[in-house]
Structures are given as C-alpha cells and as structure tokens.
C-alpha cells in the first residue's frame, strides 16, 4: 500500500482529501504545519507528499527547502497543491524540484487521486 503525507492547514480540505485517498487505497498521514510535516516525513517515509503553500508559521517553501537539505528525505517526490496562485512562489517551488504545482479549485479529489497515481507509477 502506497503512503501519502498531506501537509494542509485547512482542516476541512485535509479531511476531504484524506477520505478520498483512503477510499482509493492509500495509507494517509496528515498534518497542518510544515515543521510537523518534516518530522512525519522522516518518521513515515511516505511515497509522495501533497503540500499546501500557505501554512501557519513556516510556509510550504520552507518545508521544501528543509526537505531538500535533508538527505534522509530529500528524494521523496512532492506535489504542491495550493490555491495560492503566485507566479514567484510557483517558480521557487518548481526550482525546489516539485513534480507539479496544482491549483486546488481546478481539480476534484478524484482527479487529484488520478494524478497522484500517475506520479507514483
């Protein structure tokens, strides 16, 4: 069973995606904060991380920078999934090696699961 880590501060959305991923047969762990997300990534070693950008305290870019600097978890693929459609942030995230930068409103949870399955092939 593939493991997914969701770093998402909107509780409603985190629950929604978690439900969908579990339904699709994934093992899911979720957190609301970047630092907690890094701890979980080290502990759980997920197959992929779904990351929001605007998070309380440290943001998604911080998460990505720290992740890439930590050899233990630096190779875990990350898909940014955010409603923050800022070109500069998008460029930074892509430079930090994210697989994709998706805008949440443009996809249903089902479409997201399909995309993630594609990345994990």
């Amino acid at each position: 069973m593939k493991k997914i880590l969701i770093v998402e501060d909107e509780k409603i959305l985190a629950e929604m995606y978690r439900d969908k991923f579990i339904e699709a047969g994934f093992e899911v762990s979720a957190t609301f904060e970047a630092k907690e997300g890094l701890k979980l990534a080290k502990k759980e070693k997920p197959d992929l991380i779904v990351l929001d950008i605007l998070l309380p305290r440290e943001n998604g870019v911080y998460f990505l920078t720290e992740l890439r600097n930590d050899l233990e978890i630096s190779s875990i693929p990350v898909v940014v999934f955010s409603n923050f459609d800022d070109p500069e942030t998008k460029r930074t995230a892509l430079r930090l090696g994210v697989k994709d930068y998706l805008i949440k409103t443009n996809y249903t949870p089902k479409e997201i699961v399909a995309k993630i399955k594609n990345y994990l092939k």
Partner: protein
Amino acid sequence: MEQILLINQIFLFLNVAVGCFLAFWVLLANPREKLNRIFFIVTILMVLMVVFASLGFSSNEPQQASIWYRLNGGVVVLFFIAAYFFSIYFPKKIAENRLLTKLVVILCSLLFLISVFSNLIISGIAEKEWGMEIIFGKGKLFYYIPIIILTLLIIYNLFKKYFVLTKEERLKVQYVLMGIFVFALANFIFNVGFTFLIGSVQFQHFGDYSVIFFLGFTAYAIVKRELFGIKVVLTALLVGLIAILLLLDIFVFTSQGWLQGLKGVIFVIFLYFGYLLIKSVLLEIQRRQEIEKIDKAKSEFISIASHQLRTPLTAVKGYISMILEGTYGQLAEKQVRPLENVYQSNERLIKLVNDLLNLSRLDAGKIEFSPELISLEEMVSDLIEELRINAEKKGLYMKMVKSLKPLPKIMVDQDKLRQVILNIIDNAIKYTNKGGITIELKKIDGEEEIKVSDTGEGMTKKEIESLFQMFSRATAGTQLHTEGAGLGLYVARQFIEMHGGKIWAESPGKSKGSTFYIQLSIHLDPELLKTKTKTITKTANDIF
C-alpha cells in the same frame, strides 16, 4: 603655483576626511561582516596612498620625496591585494581559486618589497617648479604589468558573478563599476589629458583624489539596502564633474579678476540648475518606485484574496463531487440533479475567480509566460474527455477530427492554452442546444490549427467584432445564459497573443452555428522564449 598647492591641500584634506568617514561608516555598519572589514582596509590603504603621493609631491627635498613616493608605490600594491579580496567578497562571496589567491599574495608582497626598498621602480626624484616628480627606474614595467593584470582580474571577478546575481546585487556591482569608471576617467583626464596639453604631470594628483568617487559609490553600495537607480547617479556625476572642471577653470586657468567673477556667476547658476536636474530625476524615480510598490501590493492582495475565495469553493467542489461519486453512500435519484446544479454553480464561481485573477495580472501589465513542449492532440483529447459529460447531458455529440499525420509537439504555455481551449469548447456546449461540437486539429504550413465548430446559436458580424473585448457577450449569451461575465474570450485573446498566435471566430449568421479558430506557430518565436515574463502594458491600458 601657490594656488595649485592650496587646491591640492584642500582636495587632500577632503579626501582624507571623507575617506576615513567612509571607512568607519562601512565598518561600524556591520563589523562582523568580512566584506565590510575588507572595505575598511581598502579605504585606509587608499587614503594612505593619496597622502603619501601628496607628501612626495610637496616635499622640500628630493630625499624626503623619494621616501614618500616609495611608500606610496608600496601601498598601491597592498591596495591591489585588498581590492582583489574585495572582488571575491563583493557583493557576495564567490568560490575563489585558492592557488591564484596565494600567487597574488606572494607576488604582490615581493613587488611591495621591491618598490619600497630598491631603486628598480623609483630611481630618483626631479625637482620641478611645481613640486617633486618621480624618475622611474628600469623595473617600471615589472611594476605596472602585475598591477594591470590584477586590475583585469578584479574586473573579471566582478563581471563573472554579475550574471548570477539578483537585480539588487547587480545594481551594487554597477555602483562599484561606476566608481571605477569615474576614477579611471579622472585619471585619464588629469594624468594623460593634462600631461599632453601642458606637457607636465603637475595635475596628476587631482586624478588620485577622484578615488573618493570609487570609495563613495562602493561604501554606499555595501551599506544601503535600497540604492538609487543608476540614472540618478549618472546625472549627479555629470553635474559634479562639470562643476569640478568649472571650478578648476576659475582658479587655475583664469587670471583676470573680472573674468573670474563672471565665471563664478556662471558656476553658481550651473550649480542651481544642476541641483534642479538631479532633484527632478530623483523625484521621477521615486514616483516610479512608489507605483511599483503599489503594483506589488495590489498583485499580492489579488493573490491572497483569490486564495481566500478559492478555499471554500474547493471544499464545495470536492465534497459535492465526492457525494455525487458515491463516496458517502448511494444517492437517491432526485438528489442527483440539485447537487449537480450546486456543482455547476460552484464551477461558475471558480471560473469567475480565475478570470478575475488573470484580468488583474493583465491589468498590472505583467503575466508569467512559461512555454514547454507538449502534444496538442493529447491536450485537446484530455479536454474533450473532461467536457464530454456536459455535452452528453444536453444530448449533444462531441467529436474530434485528428490530422492524418500525427502533429509535431509544440511550444506553448500549457496552463494558459488549456484554459483557452477549455473556455471555447465550454462556450460551444453552453450556446448549442441541438446537434453538437466538432473539434478539428490540423497543420497548416508552420502552424497548428484548432478549429471548434458548433451547431448552436451563431452570431452576427457585429457580435463577432466585439466578441474578444472585455465584458462582451453575443446576444445568444444574454438570451440563453446569464452566468458569463464576458471575460473569458478577452483573456483567451490575450493568452493566444502572448504566444504570437491568432484567435478568431466566424459564423454564417444567426442559428447557423459558430466556428472558433486558434492558430499557433509550431516554432515559437525565439524572442518569446527569451523572457519568462511577458509584459502587456498596451492591453492593460486598453482595459480601463
């Protein structure tokens, strides 16, 4: 003669005072920073260099002058070592070639000893009526060649990192290069120009004094976070240089009192207008910076606001779609339709937010353009599958006519093109009640064409003319649907034009259907590829 000595002393005093001030200003701004410490050393060496040269020049005895001039020669060498380190650390450190650094330090130390303790560089002093002049020895070339190589190495270090620096850091380097340029220009004027004109090196010290420009620019670049644009600096420089030349003309080259008075008046008038000129350039730049700040704040506000609007829309979209998919249990048949309606209404809101976000970016005059190589056939095919359900619900057919030969991949901004095609097919479904939609792809010469034909309401010529303008909808839009804001096709045109492509619509008339065409060049114009940010200022002005 006395006048020259007096001006010399005034300039020397100013140099020492300003130099010391700059050295301590930079050091105290951040004493722990290596760059600030190196600048402090560079500046102190520069001040010593100017002082020793001036003392040599104005000495009473050749023996004394020789000591000062030799010390000056030695300090020049030390200065170049420090300047070399400065070029490594300014504005941020680059990986240094350690072997080269060692070589520079060893060779320059050797050169320092030779220039201070031997006759190879300075062999003697000639007494002139205006002061003491150096008589160079046989080793003159051995002194100047390393200095020239070191200068080139310093400039190379600065240029090498220039292209990997941020905009602000580049401006800092420009400041230093500007300082070096003024220093070099003043040396050229006073050391070469005046020597050629008068046949004497008596004014060469004025070239030395211009080092204060280099120090001033560099200190400012290190300490200040926000620098003035290079235009202000150039204007100020020009005014300053002309003022110095006018001043020299009054005191050195004019002997008649009345003419000195007249030139003095001209000098004062020049200073006043020069001040006004610099002030107006400064004001202009400040205004532009303020506008840029407002633009940035506006853009950030739009990004945050759209984020806040999108979050609840995402939850509604996600949960409704999951309820419809049966994630939370089987739905009763009569529950499906109302939920689908909620879903569609939510989609309209999402589209509106996306259009407004795009519009605000077009309005700001800047929008990201990120082309990548993609297959148009794959993209259109995916979009058709995505929208097929909407067409089928209305009982419409939807077919794709592919080119006989597979189309080559094309450089486009995937997100933007996807949005445009989605918009056009979505409109076709919306405005068609009978028949269906045909999407055709083909290659025409160096271009790929996407043709979307429907059997819908059709349009009049007048409607077609205003179709791609803002807040415009064909009458079919107002009669059949009230949801569209009339922004979609306007944004679509902007996006296609960003690609250097064309978009237009045709219709034989009312009730005869419409056809939309998009043509994109297979080989994107290299000019469009060069920049990631496309500025559409003209269209932004057109909007309001």
